[in-house]
């Protein structure tokens, strides 16, 4: 069956493909980090949530719980921009694969709603649900894992133009999945393992923050967080090797020397990740910085894999550009003002931590 590719949108790109690609990578990185913190934090809260009162694990779960619904809201919101740039650059592939697995793809919407409701009830309104709060939190975690699996499915299916026509010929009811793709399990595992690793780092950072207020708990949190970071981070590295080997040979070889630039980016990501693992116990802040940079490199690798996989069928660089510099500037200004405003909001929130004075008179 011949490969079928939708044509390029006649309205063209709103800016040079390189700019949109850069924005895609830059906006996806915070989304991925927020997802890792939320999912990994939830897993930690579930693991330690049943510990008896007074146990440091119970206190960790308590401290994480309040953050998780907000973390989920931020994950969803931060995911909107990369999805926008993905559609502008690779809509031909993304829309096609989405239609092929339409029902599964659509399932994400109710799944996220139920997952959030579960988190909200379990952690912000536990008195409403009583003993069921733990079960609800598990339900939320399970739904998040399913949502991640659906995303991995679509993100790999969109990279396989050769599969689209046969899958559509088999069923036009939006029931196709990409389960036969060797990239899928490797990619899914790689995505999921990052969550406990990053959450472990967050736990260690929380320990660092409380070192003067609660020294015993601080030591426990740093030790436990580092352990999560090391174990999950080590497995993450191994799953990364599996992912690399699962790529089609013509793509995988680009990251193993054929393309010096892409090999360099992958190597930088690995070095940053290993460095973060090495320094995590002694310098948690440095490890966090190295991790953020490492995740950024890996997002760039992910982007390059997509480009290699889709070439020559879908090539964003070949789409005509109808640039509008005025609106692009307006976006830059809005983004700048937005970042400053978010910075101010976070600042005033941190300033009033623990205070119980505030708005309520009397």
């Amino acid at each position, binding site marked *: 069956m011949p490969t079928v590719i*939708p*044509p390029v*949108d*006649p*309205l*063209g*790109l*709103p800016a040079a493909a390189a700019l949109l690609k850069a924005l895609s990578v830059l906006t996806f990185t915070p989304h991925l980090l927020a997802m890792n913190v939320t999912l990994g934090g939830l897993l930690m809260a579930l693991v330690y949530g049943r510990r008896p009162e007074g146990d440091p694990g119970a206190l960790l779960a308590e401290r994480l719980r309040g953050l998780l619904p907000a973390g989920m*809201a*931020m994950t*969803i*919101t*931060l*995911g*909107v*921009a990369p*999805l*926008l740039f993905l*559609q*502008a650059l690779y*809509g031909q592939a993304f*829309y*096609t694969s*989405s*239609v092929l697995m*339409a029902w599964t*793809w*659509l399932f*994400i*919407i109710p799944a*996220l*709603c139920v997952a*959030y409701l579960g988190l909200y009830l379990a952690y912000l309104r536990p008195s409403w649900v009583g003993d069921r709060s733990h079960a609800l939190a598990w339900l939320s975690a399970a739904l998040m894992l399913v949502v991640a699996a659906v995303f991995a499915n679509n993100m790999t299916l969109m990279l396989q133009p050769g599969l*689209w*026509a046969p899958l*559509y010929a088999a069923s*036009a*009811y939006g029931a196709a999945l990409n389960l036969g793709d060797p990239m899928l399990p490797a990619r899914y595992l790689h995505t999921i393992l990052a969550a406990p690793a990053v959450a472990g780092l967050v736990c260690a950072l929380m320990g660092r923050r409380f070192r003067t207020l609660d020294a015993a708990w601080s030591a426990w949190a740093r030790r436990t967080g580092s352990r999560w970071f090391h174990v999950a981070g080590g497995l993450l590295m191994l799953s990364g090797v599996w992912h690399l080997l699962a790529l089609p040979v013509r793509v995988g070889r680009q990251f193993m020397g054929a393309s010096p630039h892409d090999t360099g980016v992958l190597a930088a990501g690995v070095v940053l990740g290993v460095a973060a693992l090495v320094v995590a116990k002694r310098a948690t802040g440095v490890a966090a910085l190295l991790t953020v940079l490492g995740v950024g490199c890996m997002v760039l690798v992910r982007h390059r894999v997509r480009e290699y996989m889709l070439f020559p069928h879908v090539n964003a660089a070949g789409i005509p550009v*109808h640039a*509008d510099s005025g*609106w692009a500037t*307006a*976006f830059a200004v*809005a983004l700048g003002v*937005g970042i400053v*405003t*978010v910075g101010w*909001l*976070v600042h*005033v*929130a941190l300033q*009033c*931590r623990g*205070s*119980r*004075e*505030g*708005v*309520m*008179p009397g």
Partner: protein
Amino acid sequence: MNYPIWDVPLTGGGLLIAAVAVVHVFISHFAIGGGLFLVLTECMGLRTRDASVLAYAKRHTSFLTLVALVFGAVTGVGVWWTTALVNPSAVSALVHLFAWVWAIEWVFFLVEIVAALVYRYGWDRMDPRTHQAVGWVYFASAWLSLLMINGILTFMLTSGKWPETQSLTDAWLNPGMLPSLVVRSAVCVALAGVYALITSSQLADAGLKQRMVRYSAKWVIAGAAVIPIAGLWFAGTLPDQARFLASGGTPIITAFTAASVLLSGLLIAGTLFGPMLFPRQTHVTFACVLAAIALGATGATEWVREAVRKPYVIYEYMYSNSLRPADLADVSSVGLLASSRWHVPAKSDWHQPVTIGRSVFRVECSSCHTVSGLNSIKFATRGWDKQFLDQQIQYLNTLKGSMPPFIGTDEERAGLVAYLISLQADGPAPSAALPARSRGERLCRR
């Protein structure tokens, strides 16, 4: 034509979009109006030094963050999601044209979410001045988000000068943009009051309940009073065809227009003669009934807004079946199926008109019609004979203003006719009592 078509049996994809979109509009407008409601209520509590009003505002904040933050965001993405599955070409066009507008909207939305979280967290913790400033940031960013997205929504109906200039500014600042912004802002205010009635009607303190229920009712009436005036202004910007469809041109759209007006009137009357006059007696069940009426009014209005766009999905640019007027000549000469990438029958079936017709139906008709479910083509063409069907299809846009023209070769049109006739043979004719010829003649006379 360019993308695979998702077959949704019985309902078609349109109903899925409508279901997600109505819920999203109902939540997202509340999220915006609710921000203003909270800040002004907090301001009132501080001015009167009334701790009970502030305590109410704090509780209402939790309600807003639960409903608005994630359900608003997820259903918003859900509208995008569902529309892209049902009509990927249209979403692709909007994304490519409005990418920067959407990106700016995302920045405002991000600020809105962070501000809402900090505002909720800041109760009992922040000094009043800072807390109010956070609240204003929340409301301002939420409204700016509406400002951006509203221009995209109205563009789909009133594309203004864009077809000639191809300028993004002309596309966004289209004729319907400003009046629609006023309508939607008023809806935000009214819905803020509707939601506030649900929380205020549950207050235990009778005095506080009386004040807050009446206060909430004023929001509903203030918002609802502006909607008809701004609505008429918006209607004045609509293309003639769209106005015609909503005001008698098509019975079903006219019925929904009437439902929208009636339900809005019912909401005002219910608020006036309920919570406004009898605040102490207002029960949460009654508040929920008012919310259900508001949801009905929102749903009917949004449905009309979508329906009057027909035959376009993006006015003067793309028909509801994703074909573009600009491609009409090319596709007609080459053939629809020869131009289509996904729905081409096997070469061995090219001599079978019914097979060709089935493929033509999927590409050209299935965005609005199902075979035998919602808006069933089998039902719509019941009793029509071959000649009458052919005539209808040949002059489709002239005979039915809400439908795009048939695009394709004579052979493809003959195939579509053969396919539709074959559907009639699949089951008993729904209206067997009326002879086919006479039904056709009667419709022709209309």
